[in-house]
Structures are given as C-alpha cells and as structure tokens.
C-alpha cells in the first residue's frame, strides 16, 4: 500500500499539471509544471520526501529506460536521418563543446565578480 500511495501522490501531481497546462494562456510543458509543483510542495513542507521516496527513486533511477519508446519511434523517420546524418553529427559535436565552454566561463566569471565584491577573501 505504501508504494501505491506514493504512485497516487505523483500521478495526482501529473494529473493536475496537465489540467494547468490546458488553462495556461501560453504553451508550457506539463512535465515541467509537475516539476515546479512538486518542488513547491517540498519547499513549503506540505509534502515530505519520505512521502514519495521509493517511487521517486524508482523513476529517477530508471529515467533512461522510459525514453526507449520515444527513441524507437525513429523507425518512422529513417529517411530523414539518411539524408541529414552528417549535418546532425557535426551540429551535435560542435554545439556540445561550445555550450560546455560558454557555461564554464560564465560560471567562473560570475564567481570571480562575486569574490571581488566580497573583498577577495574567497575563491
């Protein structure tokens, strides 16, 4: 019953998120609404991690598995990939490297500015 209860809590949050998505005046993914909703519930203490621990561990630990059907759907688009595989490959490699560099340098620069603001006592 413990796990059933946890499934109930998480699925209820997802259910409400879908409802909120319908009524929002702009397009915003229901799964992200669910994430924000759950975060707020935890932050306000209305929900304790213990209430959903096992179910959430199960979902997070198996995250990769749930993506299989979405990936297999590529079978219906093989012709697109056949034509575009080289640009796809190049775009993925180049943008991954540049995103890494941009994030690392901006984090480092912000930390540097903050430490100067504090008088340079910290890194």
């Amino acid at each position, binding site marked *: 019953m413990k796990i059933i209860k946890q499934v109930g809590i998480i699925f209820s949050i997802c259910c409400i998120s879908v409802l909120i998505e319908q009524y929002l005046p702009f397009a915003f993914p229901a799964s992200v609404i669910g994430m924000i909703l759950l975060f707020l519930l935890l932050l306000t203490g209305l929900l304790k991690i213990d209430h959903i621990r096992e179910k959430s561990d199960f979902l997070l630990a198996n995250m990769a598995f749930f993506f299989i059907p979405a990936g297999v759907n590529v079978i219906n688009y093989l012709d697109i990939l056949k034509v575009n595989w080289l640009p796809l490959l190049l*775009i993925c490699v180049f943008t991954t490297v540049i995103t890494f560099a941009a994030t690392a340098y901006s984090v480092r620069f912000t930390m540097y500015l903050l430490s100067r603001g504090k008088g340079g006592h910290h890194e």
Partner: protein
Amino acid sequence: MSELWTSPYFGIALSILAFWTGEKLQKKLKSPLCNPLLFAILVIVVILLVFRIPYDSYNEGGAVINMFLAPATACLAVSIYTKIQILKENALPIVVGCTVGSLTSMGSVYLLCKLFGLDGAMTASLLPKSITTPIAVEVCQTHGGIVPVTVIAVIFTGILGSILAPFLLRLFRVKNPITAGLAIGACSHAVGTSKALELGETEGAMSGLAIGVCGIITVIVSMLM
C-alpha cells in the same frame, strides 16, 4: 506468429530485455560509447525491421512505458530539493551559467541549421538538444519539430558530453567542482550527469541541478521565440 506481438506485454518485455542487455554490456565493456539506452533503441529498431513487426504493435507496450516520462521529470524536483543548500549558496553563478549555456546551445544550433540549410522542422527538433529528453520533447512538439529526431539528438549529445567531459575539463582548465558540474549538466543533461557523478559528489549535484535549470530556461526562451 503475429499473435506474439499483438499484446502490450510484447513492447514492454522487449524494451526491458534490450535495456537489460545493454546495461550488462556496459558493465562488461566499461565504455561510455556503449550506452544502454542507445543500445536498446538500436536493437529494437533492428528487431522490428528484420521480423517485419509493425511499429504500432510495439507501441502498444511502448505507450505504457512512455507514460512514465512525465512523472519521472516531475521527480527531478526531488533531486533539486535535496541539493537546496548548494543551490542557495551559488544561486547567481548557477543562474548565469545555465542561462548563458542554454542560450549558447540554442543560438549555435540555430546558426548551424541555417548554415547547413536544414528546414524549420529539423531546426525545431534540434534546438532543445542539450536539455533533458522529456522537456526537449515538449519544446520540440510545441514548435512543430520531429520528436524522434529530438530524442536521438538529445541522447547522442548526452553520450558525447559524457565521453568528452574529462577532455573538455582539461582543455578549458576547469578545476572548481561547481563549475565542472554545471558545464557538464548544461551541455549534456542526465547522461552527462552520470559521468559527473563519477568525478565527484559536488560535480554530480551541480550537474543534476543544471538539468532542471537549463530545462526551464530553454522552455521560457523557446516560448518567446
């Protein structure tokens, strides 16, 4: 013979078997190239093609698995909540880093798609490639992209990130674990995070946080486009 794949159990059982084999293989080979998710997708696609099993039959079970994506995404809130202390102490660098990272990712993808002359649907499919799959799929759908192309690009990006991470950390001389984690998470989401966890606890925590923050920033930016 076709009775075998007319029930939803077929798609579920096949997916579990393929993923399980992929995990075993990864443990044995210890290579980031051998990603269980990528392995499972390839194996299932080959099986469906070889045995001429219709995609819709597989998807009877596939749809059931797919249903768990939204609850799994919601649960990212739990992992962020457990790292709330690091989040509070480094709020500004986290937000600045993830914003710059997300904008760089989308901007560079957009420019390269134009350069290669890819159409609008392909561009929309690739734009969210650096964020976690459930959010990327939603961003792709709201902009008329092709979901499987997004999924493949996201997974491929994640695997690339986890392979390149140690090399990129040296190349850009990243020593601070917070910086390292954020950079890995921002460019290669959950698959990269698994690599960040190997580097250290702080790296892993920051990488996990970057998944959520970059996801939300990308959704907001793509809504404005």
